[in-house]
């Protein structure tokens, strides 16, 4: 029975996963085309960036030289397209099995069969993880493949280290959206709250970087923990950041499973 629900979730997710993978891969590939230009003219870009306050540039991920692949990737891909793609995937996938299917009146059907609620939702969570990994891999593959074509000189091994962090970031979003979906039983509400919280976190991170007095705000922002610069440029795996995302995702999912097990599915 778990296999049945897992296969159905996989089937329902394949279109979303495919298109998000295409978007992430194509975007990363398109950006990679410009990397050789950035690298050749890094000094020029640094002069240009000096016009702006350092904190302001840092707020948008631009710390160091855009000629460094880590800075380039983080600025133009990691902190730009991935949060959007991960938010879309996380919210849609996490709110579907309980909230959206409840909204459309489908949920009563599988739950009137012998499958228990925990494995039912659990199989959907496994699909969320898989989709996040697939889309994150597509993003990196896009950058690596196009980078190879334009002789960008990316270290493919280092770039692929981005996958776990990126997937974990997406899973954290999915974990939060999952628990909200079970609590609210409304895709609109759960998705809206998740998106709103992400937006506030983004603002908090920007403000905390620009204004040292409120630097502490960054502690509460997911974007503060998603930085792929050191990972690509130095090969340092940010275990703390990875751990934060993993904890948020796991706590969210476990919370969703525990609550769903005894959730009154009142309309």
């Amino acid at each position: 029975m778990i296999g049945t629900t897992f296969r159905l979730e996989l089937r329902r997710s394949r279109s979303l996963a495919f298109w998000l993978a295409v978007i992430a891969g194509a975007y990363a590939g398109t950006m990679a085309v410009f990397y050789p230009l950035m690298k050749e003219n890094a000094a020029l870009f640094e002069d240009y960036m000096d016009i702006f306050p350092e904190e302001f540039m840092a707020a948008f991920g631009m710390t160091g030289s855009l000629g460094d692949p880590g800075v380039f990737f983080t600025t133009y891909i990691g902190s730009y397209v991935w949060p959007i793609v991960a938010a879309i995937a996380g919210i849609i996938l996490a709110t579907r099995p309980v909230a959206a299917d409840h909204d459309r009146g489908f949920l009563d059907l599988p739950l009137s069969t012998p499958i228990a609620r925990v494995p039912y939702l659990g199989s959907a969570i496994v699909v969320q993880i898989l989709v996040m990994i697939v889309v994150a891999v597509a993003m990196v593959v896009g950058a690596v493949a196009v980078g190879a074509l334009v002789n960008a000189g990316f270290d493919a091994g280092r770039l692929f280290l981005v996958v776990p962090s990126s997937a974990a970031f997406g899973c954290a979003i999915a974990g939060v959206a999952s628990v909200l979906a079970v609590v609210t039983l409304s895709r609109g509400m759960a998705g809206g709250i998740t998106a709103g919280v992400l937006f506030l976190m983004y603002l908090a991170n920007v403000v905390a970087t620009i204004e040292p007095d409120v630097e502490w705000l960054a502690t509460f922002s997911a974007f503060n923990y998603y930085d792929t610069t050191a990972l690509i440029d130095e090969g340092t795996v940010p275990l703390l950041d990875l751990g934060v995302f993993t904890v948020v995702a796991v706590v969210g999912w476990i919370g969703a499973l525990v609550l769903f097990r005894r959730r009154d599915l009142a309309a």
Partner: protein
Amino acid sequence: MTAVIEATGLTKWYGKRRGVVDVGFAVEEGEVFGFLGPNGAGKTTTIRLLLGALRPSAGRATIFGLDAWTQAPEAHRRVAFVGSDPGYLGELTAGAQLDYVGALRGLPSGAWKPVAERFGLDPTVQLKKLSRGNRQKIGVVSAFMGQEPLLVMDEPTSGLDPLMQREFLTILSETRAAGRTVFLSSHNLPEVERSCDRVGIIREGRVIDISSVQALLAGHWRSVNLVLGAPPPNGTFELPGVEVISASARDVHLMVRGDVNPLLHRIATLDVYDVSITTPEIEDIFLRYYDDGAQPLAEEVTA
């Protein structure tokens, strides 16, 4: 007889809004139990409580002795369900959806085919392209495709055309003949009259009557029209349960409730040209429960 479904004091409040209040009934093995009520009376709430989708505010329901809320997955091993206008996954074909539900119920792939053929269901069409009636067919096929001993059906024929409704009744009678138990919520009163052994009537969240269809019909007024050869003597129809509605010379219109034999014996003493006794349709009875002018319900509850 063993109670397959048993509800005791079953109550559900949605905040301050009433769902059902103190609902109690038992459905015995092998019977077809009809559950009647208008929109908003609490039929679907009762069914969702029985299926463990809702947590009771008070009371308890059991399915084969298993608690409907805390032991739902175990209970569902022996239940097939069809909802009223259930949501479907539009991207699937009818066959894929039926295979999905079948797999969750432990049925082999394609178990739905024989029933689908009887309903003329095209399994290759995507659900989002199907009409309301054809989508409802999927629910009905889904309910009948297995051999679970209990079928719970929430307005299964709504949206089906008359031919399909007839086929539904045929399969339902086969199901009953096979000894399976059916809990059938319906608006379709003739369908209930034809297929059910007993009927529960729910109004404003409360079960107000449970009885056999025959008892339900017998316990209500019947209309008797007489054409006599001569005016009857005064007091001829002063009998228990008999009410004279109109009497003009030789035409007499009576209403009789309960045992009709005393009246028939009295009529036999008269010179009768013509007589007609009209048994009320179950629909008439049903409507009486919702008619402000109806007799006090407490008098009619036979549960």
